[in-house]
């Protein structure tokens, strides 16, 4: 046992300070834009799923996801220019690998549950995205976990209690909620 209580205390205090600074840095660096981008993607995508034919909605989702991915990559590259070092590169790589693996776990879960209908697929994706959100929240602060938990709860309520308007529900509360959270982080953190 070669970590003394004092050493642990100092290291954890350093981590605590970095968490606070990271929150401010996230707010200032434009990371909230990810939330707004994906909030808009969800808003439009789920509205498409609610009101348009399945095939058309599918194409809209593909287009929106592609656009969201490109925009996120551009913003990510721009943000990465702010702080660049060997250590930060390693942390970024670790987070990227986690999200990639999360995607694979989501695909595996859908494969296990197959055949799944459109709403089930949407719920699986929502649940895994929110698990990713939880894991990221764990690295930053308690408060950043709760919006993810609330969105999950709303999604489950919509899925089980309001199946007829599930997509509309997710568009407004899920997509709209993410946009609102992005604006909140930008203005309050």
């Amino acid at each position, binding site marked *: *046992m*070669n*970590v003394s*209580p004092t*050493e*642990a*205390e100092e*290291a*954890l*205090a*350093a*981590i*605590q*300070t*970095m968490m606070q600074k*990271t929150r*401010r*840095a996230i*707010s*200032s*660096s434009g990371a909230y834009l990810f939330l707004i981008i994906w909030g808009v993607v969800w808003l439009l995508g789920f509205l498409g799923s609610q009101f348009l034919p399945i095939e058309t909605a599918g194409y809209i989702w593909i287009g929106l996801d592609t656009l969201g991915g490109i925009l996120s990559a551009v913003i990510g590259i721009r943000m990465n220019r*702010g*702080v*660049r*070092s060997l*250590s*930060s590169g*390693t*942390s970024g790589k*670790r*987070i990227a*690998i*986690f999200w990639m*693996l*999360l995607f694979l*776990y989501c695909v*595996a*879960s859908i*494969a*296990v*549950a197959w055949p*799944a209908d459109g709403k*089930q697929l949407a*719920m*699986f994706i929502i*649940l895994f995205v929110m*698990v990713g959100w*939880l*894991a990221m929240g*764990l*690295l930053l602060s*308690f408060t950043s*976990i709760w919006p993810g*938990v609330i969105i*999950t709860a709303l999604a*489950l309520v919509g*899925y089980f209690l309001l199946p007829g308007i599930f997509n509309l529900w997710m568009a407004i509360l899920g997509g709209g909620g993410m946009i609102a959270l992005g604006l909140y982080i930008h*203005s*309050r*953190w």
Partner: protein
Amino acid sequence: MAKKSDPMNISPNEAEEALATIQAMRKKTLHSYANSGTYITLIVTGIVWLVGFLSTQFVPEISGYVWTVGSILGTILGTVLGFRMGKRVRSPSTAPTAKRIGLFWLLLVFYGIATIAVARPTDGKQATIFIVLFIMLGQLAMGLLFSFSSVWWALPITALALVGYFLLPSIFYLWMGVLGGGGMIVLALYIRSRW
């Protein structure tokens, strides 16, 4: 309400120093894990899986009791070990970290239950593989906080579980007992000897 401070107030040097501190702590934590007895938790879980899955495969009529008793014993042992290890490093700063990790696992349980509920109707094997997927996902998230090496063991176990589920459904539980449970025991011995 927190007042918004200067934009981007982490200098590259500050970030580098803080990350180096965290990096050093990760290495020390790995050594601490190997020396503190955390590996015993893996062995206990491995044995519970080994015995539980073997009973599900060969004596399904009593497997419910085996899992219940095994899980209770495993939880008691894990809690006792957790308390013993918790006494070694105790400070105001460790409590929030432990609380955060505990909350994460608690929420992950709810997400696992939600996933099974969404996938319903599910059979025993589907429910099992969902539970395995979520446990391994939790390990991956924990690996993010500690080091790369603690992540990778979850991947082969996940891959083996999926291979067993899709390709060997008739011996899935036997497969999970021997390779999942046995794999954890081997990993624990590896951690003890190499970290």
